[in-house]
Structures are given as C-alpha cells and as structure tokens.
C-alpha cells in the first residue's frame, strides 16, 4: 500500500487524522452540556467543545479541498461511516464521569499541543496557518485540563481514587498517538508534519510532570490499542456516536440546514 500512496492521498489521510480527532473529541465534550459538576465547568467544557468544532471546520475543510471531490467539511463529518474515520481511539471512548473526561482531555491536549507546535513550521503554509491559530486555543485547553487533573488528583482521597481510575482506563489508548506508518513517513519526507514516534519523549516528560504533581501513578503496562488512525479498527463506541451525530443528515439527505 505504502508505495501506492500519492502525495495528495497521504496528505488527505493526515488531514483526516487531525480533523477527526477534533471532531470526535469535540462531540464527546459537547455531551456534557448542562450536566457539569459546577457552572464554571459547564462554561469551560462548552468552550473546549466549541474550539474543537471550529478546528474541525478548518482541518476537514482543507481535507475536502485536497480530496478534490467537491465535498465540504460537513460531508466528511456527517456522511462517512466508521471505517472511514481516522481519529485515534482515545478520543472516541465514552465520557463516563468528569474525571475520565478531564483525564482523556489532558492526555489528548498534551499530544495536541506538542503536535501543533511542530506543525507551525510545516512546509505546507495552510497547515502552518491552522496550527498557528489553533495552538493558542489548545495551550489554554492543556493548561486547564492539567490544572484540573492536578487539583483532583491532589484533592481528597476520593477524588484521588477517581482520578487514578480515570488514568488507568485510557492509558492503553495513549500509545496510538505515537505510532507511525506510511502516511507519516510521507508527511515527514515532505516536511509537512513530524514523525509521531519522535514526539513521545517530550510527551512523556510533560505528562509525568503533571501526573506526579497530581500524585497519580502511571500504569506500568505499555500495551497499546491501535487502529483508529489507520481505520483498521475502531471501538464499538464510535458507531453509536456517529448514529447520533449524523442522524439528521442521514435521515433527510440533501436538505440544507
């Protein structure tokens, strides 16, 4: 497959990976609307979701252009099925409780901010521009999710236990963000994006610092689930998410909203 991939096809896959991550995570976070533990969190979660949906419009908008089939960002978001999604599995796991939601956010934000930092110097000017714009938002997300992880980890005994469980569950989904394949090789070669594997050291240093401050223990297992970013395998949760997200577009094809 690797040698069959044209430059545009690889770029398209890369953009889907970026846009599907923000789309699916933005959707998950938006599920909290009106149900957060305190009013300030309702506002902050809505704000995070809003940023992520805005970022999705940029990434999938560019993906649709590169694809060249006269599709829109909405077409990509609302009219693809599970196997065509390229987000990492981490972002599709359910919210469960506030602790799990914030831990998932932190584990993603940490990767996202490092990734965008590199993309700001991408050889592709459009990508560099999106990265410059979105990295400011993501820096705020990271600051907030890290603070909350620390606050709850180093809060009461009960909140500490919740947060340790909140770390244990998504941990096996972290490794996928650093796995590289032919698409990544093509991106590295074109100077568009960094090699995912190369970001791991910086990531580990960042999360270790925060999780230590949060008095949490990193799980020992280094096993990692994979398949989301290649589309080879998703969790069962994604289909249900799409069922809800895509319902109107699927039920009333061709309507304008």
């Amino acid at each position, binding site marked *: 497959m690797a040698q069959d991939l044209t430059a545009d096809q690889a770029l398209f896959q890369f953009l889907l990976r970026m846009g599907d991550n923000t789309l699916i995570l933005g959707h998950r976070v938006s599920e909290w*609307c*009106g149900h957060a533990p305190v009013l300030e*969190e*309702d506002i902050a979660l809505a704000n995070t979701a809003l940023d992520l*949906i805005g970022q999705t419009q940029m990434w999938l908008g560019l993906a649709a252009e590169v694809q060249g089939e006269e599709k829109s960002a909405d077409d990509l978001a609302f009219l693809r099925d599970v196997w065509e999604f390229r987000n990492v599995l981490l972002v599709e796991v359910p919210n469960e409780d506030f602790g799990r939601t914030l831990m998932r956010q932190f584990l993603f934000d940490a990767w996202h901010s490092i990734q965008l930092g590199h993309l700001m110097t991408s050889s592709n000017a459009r990508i560099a521009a999106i990265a410059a714009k979105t990295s400011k938002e993501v820096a705020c997300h990271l600051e907030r999710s890290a603070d909350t992880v620390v606050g709850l980890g180093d809060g009461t005994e009960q909140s500490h236990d919740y947060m340790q469980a909140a770390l244990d569950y998504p941990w096996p989904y972290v490794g996928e963000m650093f796995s590289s394949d032919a698409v990544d090789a093509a991106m590295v070669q074109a100077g568009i994006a960094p090699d995912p594997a190369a970001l791991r050291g910086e990531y580990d240093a960042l999360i270790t610092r925060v999780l230590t401050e949060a008095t949490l223990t990193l799980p020992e297992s280094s096993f990692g689930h994979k398949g989301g970013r290649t589309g080879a395998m998703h969790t069962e949760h994604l289909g249900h998410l799409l069922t809800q997200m895509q319902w*109107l*577009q699927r039920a009333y094809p061709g*309507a304008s*909203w």
Partner: protein
Amino acid sequence: MPAGYRKTLIRQIGQHAHSEIVGQLPEGNWITRAPTLERKAILLAKVQDEAGHGLYLYCAAETLGVSRDELTEKLLDGRMKYSSIFNYPTLNWADMGAVGWLVDGAAILNQVPLQRTSFGPYARAMVRVCKEESFHARQGFDVMRKMATGTPAQQKMAQDALNRLWFPALMMFGPSDAESTHSEQSMAWKIKMNSNDELRQKFVDQTVPQIEFLGLELPDAGIKWNEARGSYDYSDPDWSKFFDVIQGNGPCNVDRLAARNKAWKDGAWVRDGLLAHARKKAARKHAAE
C-alpha cells in the same frame, strides 16, 4: 433595604438564574444531533451564553447576601422555581429555531424593561444578558427561516415546532394581570415595569408578521388583526395547563429536575476535590512564607 423588597428580589433573581441553568437542557438536547458543524458551534455558543447568564445572575443575588450554593439547593429540592417554558420538550431540529426565536424573543420583552429596574446589580446584569438574548433570537429566526423554506419535511418540522411552542411562549409573560400573585407589589417597587398583558400583546404583535414572513400557518385560529385596537387579537392560553406545569406536571418537570440533581450529585466529589486542593495549596504557600 426593606425586607420584603430584598426577599422579592432574591426570589426573582434566583428564579431567573435557575431558568438560565435549566434552560441549558432543552437546547443541550440537540447539540449532539446538530446537522452541520456550524449549527453545532452556534448552538454550543448559545447554551454557553445561557450558563454565563446564570453566573452573572447568581453573582447579582450574592450581593443580597444569598450564596449560589444556597440557591442551588433550593432549586434542586423544589423550594424555588424556574421558568415553566423549560419544562416542554424539544422534539425536532426546528425547535432549536423556535426556542431562540420565540422563547428568547419573549424573554427579551420581559427583560428589556429590567435594565431599568430599581436594583442596580440586577439591572446591570440585564444589560449584558439582553444583548446576548437578541443575538440568540436572531439566530433562532435564522434556523426557522432555513427550515420554513427548506424541504417539505423541514417545513413540517418548522410548523410542528411553532404549533407546540406558541402557547407556552405566551404563558412566559405570566397569568393575566388580574390573577398574577406578585405583579402589583413588584410594580410598586419598580422591580417590574410593565404588566404581563401589555408585554404579551407586544409579543403577539411583533411575532405574527414574522410567522407570515416565514410562510407558516398561524398557530392559533383566533389570531386576527383588530383595526380598532391597532393590535392582533389572539386566543388566551389554557391557563389550567400553565398551573399544571407550575405544580410539577409539565411534560419534562421531573426529568429536568432529575438531570440537575444528577449533575449536582455526580459532581460532588469534583467540587470537594478541587476545594480540598485549593486549601492544601494555600496552606503550602502559607507554610513557605
């Protein structure tokens, strides 16, 4: 400040704040099903604004010496009310248009005069809230326009939403002046500036031409231009239904309150944890000094 005036203000501001909070739920109900990325972003931003309105209003109430947690407890155990309009369900996507257009629209008419209300912190909160509410009403109308001029199925959704929400929206102005329990005293204190019936008529007069513009059917056969009054006649809502909802028997009362109680209960460990951390941090800082 006279005790009765203070008590009335706490009731009104608290109820208003609770309405913003519970008001997140009927629209939050459609965020995960919004049909485009843009609509999803607009709806998220709107619901976020409502949470912000709740926040300013609780702050205004705090200046009267009542804490947000105290008011929240009273909402959760039913001692305080919130606007009955949020006890109606949102059943199709056009409801996201109709809610902004009719519900935020009616709220604006109720709230614009409150910018001049006699209690400063409430009046100032209302200035900011009203600005955002008019934005919501315009966005709602835009969704409605799109639906009313869309496919036959979309037009059906628009009509259905209008028909379901019309009378509940009229009821947002409260019972007729003769029957309203708090109106007279509140008008004397200048907490309330216009009568319920005055505002309701204003709402009907501004909304009927909009319904006609959208090309939708009027939701009430009693709507007719009255040349002599220079206003539209309309049918009085069935007030027994209004009192049913107030008594807790609206279509969503139980679910709305259960959702708020669940959020509060599930969030207890988070609030406790963050508070404990803030205390530890302050103590560490103190020890270091």
